[in-house]
């Protein structure tokens, strides 16, 4: 792949995203775009934990819901400026997540998944029961930050706000991916015990990744509250929402910067389209399932690695098998020569190479 392809693709992608509100035919598609953008935020936020450390949390809706309710309640009770409430809510979730993370990260694998689910279920029950604080099943009404705007303009602004939040997340991801911290997290993902033996402070790093992930998820939730304006425990603290984050991230490819984003665009658009076409029946769930089945069967590593492999197949075939063989042949010959040399001149000072085994 030539060097200009990647930046060019990035520029086209950015342009398409920024022009999206101008290109859409009506406000309905625009609102679907806002939903997809919010999905992209949550999937990317999830991936700070799930992608970097390999800890699969099915309960990230907990942070989404806390961010959303926190924002709404701060505006309602303290009459804070909406975006100040949003930031403060993210900060509160960050603080709450510290003890939660310390407790949850004592376990690994399937146990961690269960702990993450139980946390969201606890919050669901609490928010339903504590009607005086959360509005319970009646829902919580969040006043709009831009009360005088018409709907399409409202959608447009929030589309850009979600995109800006996403950009911050992607930038954070990019920085972490190149850092010592990122290298440590990837080592944890591959094998926690080995990472520990090499001196990676695994416990602290996992907690840090969890806090980053939770806070970004909460900010996405708070943004959603400001946009949608109406919160219900069943939808905010929903296992399904957490599962969507996992599916989108895995589908796009968790190890790639844009993986969760691509996954969110694919799954989110499909969800919205299926709802539009088959929304009056349960058929939309069937189509969603078929889509996921196809991806899991044919692109197990996600869409981005699959697309990359396809590009390589049609691209120039300059790295042929022959080249690799020649290299290995050379190495074998050199190793053999060195062995001979070492055998002939033992004690000649040059230690035998020892790398002579054939791969």
């Amino acid at each position, binding site marked *: 792949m030539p060097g200009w392809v990647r930046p060019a693709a990035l520029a086209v992608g950015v342009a398409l995203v920024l022009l999206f509100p101008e290109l859409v035919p009506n406000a309905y598609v625009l609102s679907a775009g806002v939903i997809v953008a919010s999905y992209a935020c949550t999937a990317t936020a999830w991936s700070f934990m799930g992608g970097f450390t390999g800890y699969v949390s099915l309960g990230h809706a907990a942070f989404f819901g806390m961010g959303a309710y926190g924002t709404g309640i701060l505006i309602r009770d303290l009459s804070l400026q909406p975006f100040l409430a949003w930031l403060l809510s993210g900060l509160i979730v960050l603080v709450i997540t510290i003890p939660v993370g310390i407790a949850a990260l004592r376990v690994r694998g399937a146990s961690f998944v269960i702990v993450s689910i139980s946390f969201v279920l606890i919050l669901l029950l609490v928010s339903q029961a504590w009607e005086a604080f959360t509005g319970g099943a009646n829902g919580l009404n969040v006043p709009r930050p831009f009360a005088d705007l018409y709907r399409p303009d409202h959608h447009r602004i929030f589309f850009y706000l979600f995109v800006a939040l996403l950009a911050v997340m992607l930038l954070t991801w990019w920085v972490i991916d190149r850092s*010592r911290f990122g*290298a*440590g997290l*990837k*080592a944890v993902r*591959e*094998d926690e*015990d*080995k*990472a*520990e*033996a*090499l*001196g*990676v*402070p695994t416990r602290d790093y996992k907690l840090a990744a969890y806090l980053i992930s939770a806070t970004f998820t909460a900010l996405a939730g708070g943004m959603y509250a400001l946009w949608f304006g109406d919160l219900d425990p069943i939808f905010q603290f929903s296992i399904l929402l957490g599962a969507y984050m996992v599916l989108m991230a895995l589908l796009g490819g968790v190890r790639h910067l844009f993986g969760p984003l691509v996954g969110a665009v694919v799954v989110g658009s499909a969800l919205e389209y299926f709802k539009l076409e088959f929304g009056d029946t349960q058929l939309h769930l069937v189509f969603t399932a078929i889509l996921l089945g196809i991806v899991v069967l044919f692109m197990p590593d996600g869409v981005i690695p699959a697309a990359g492999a396809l590009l390589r197949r049609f691209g120039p075939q300059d790295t042929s098998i022959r080249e690799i063989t020649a290299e290995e042949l050379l*190495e074998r010959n050199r190793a053999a020569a060195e062995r001979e040399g070492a055998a002939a001149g033992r004690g000649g000072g040059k*230690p*035998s*190479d*020892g*790398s*002579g*085994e*054939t*791969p």
Partner: protein
Amino acid sequence: MASEEKDGTTRPAERPLLVLDDVYAGYGRAAMVLRGLSVKVPPRTVVCLVGPNGAGKSTVLKVASGLLRPREGRVVVDGSDVTGQGPQQMLRSGLAHVLQGHSVFREMTVEENVLLGAYTLRDRARIAERVAFVQELFPIVGERWKQLAGLLSGGQQKQVEFARSLMIDPKVVLLDEPSMGLDPKTTATVFQQITRMRDAGTAVLLVEQNARRALETADLGCVLDLGRVHISGPAAELLADQRLSELYLGGRPRSTA
């Protein structure tokens, strides 16, 4: 020089780099695995622990590298007591642990693997220096620098692990079953490399199932059984011991047979 030390008799009494003194350790509520274990690793020496399965060989290394805290006893590195410290402090005091089995990060490049070995270092110039050193000691590591470690052969992966452990310029390298899963020829190469690590100035505490082969490489040997050292001495003497051979090494000594 190294070959003279092989019999263990010409070595002057130097302060050992690693001492485990009367260590008791175990997992959870289960019975103690180590019961009063003591072992010493002198400078520029390969010390080999042999013994039956379950004798506690790997546990010794885990205690030394801080992965397992001892219940009783002391761990002393180069004169300073480091008992009860975690893996990071142990690395800083100069103990590097190469875990059992294939312990490279398969989905990372050789470069990323080796650099993870320097995780506790922060000085970039120092890291570059160590990279040059390990690439010279293990040429294959330099040749495969940008490749995924999982694509290398078993013996090559072992070299990556050795290189990774040498990044911190450790006083003692702890090797857990380096020959595991390798064919005889590659095993021979691996043992040769252990000798090279020693000659390059690093002491080695080695745990091996492949006991006879390991003792042939080692300078000193310790026979472990039921959580403590039963017999220790120059490796060559242990190899020659008739009774020991029958009890622990599976058969008669090779040289006298």
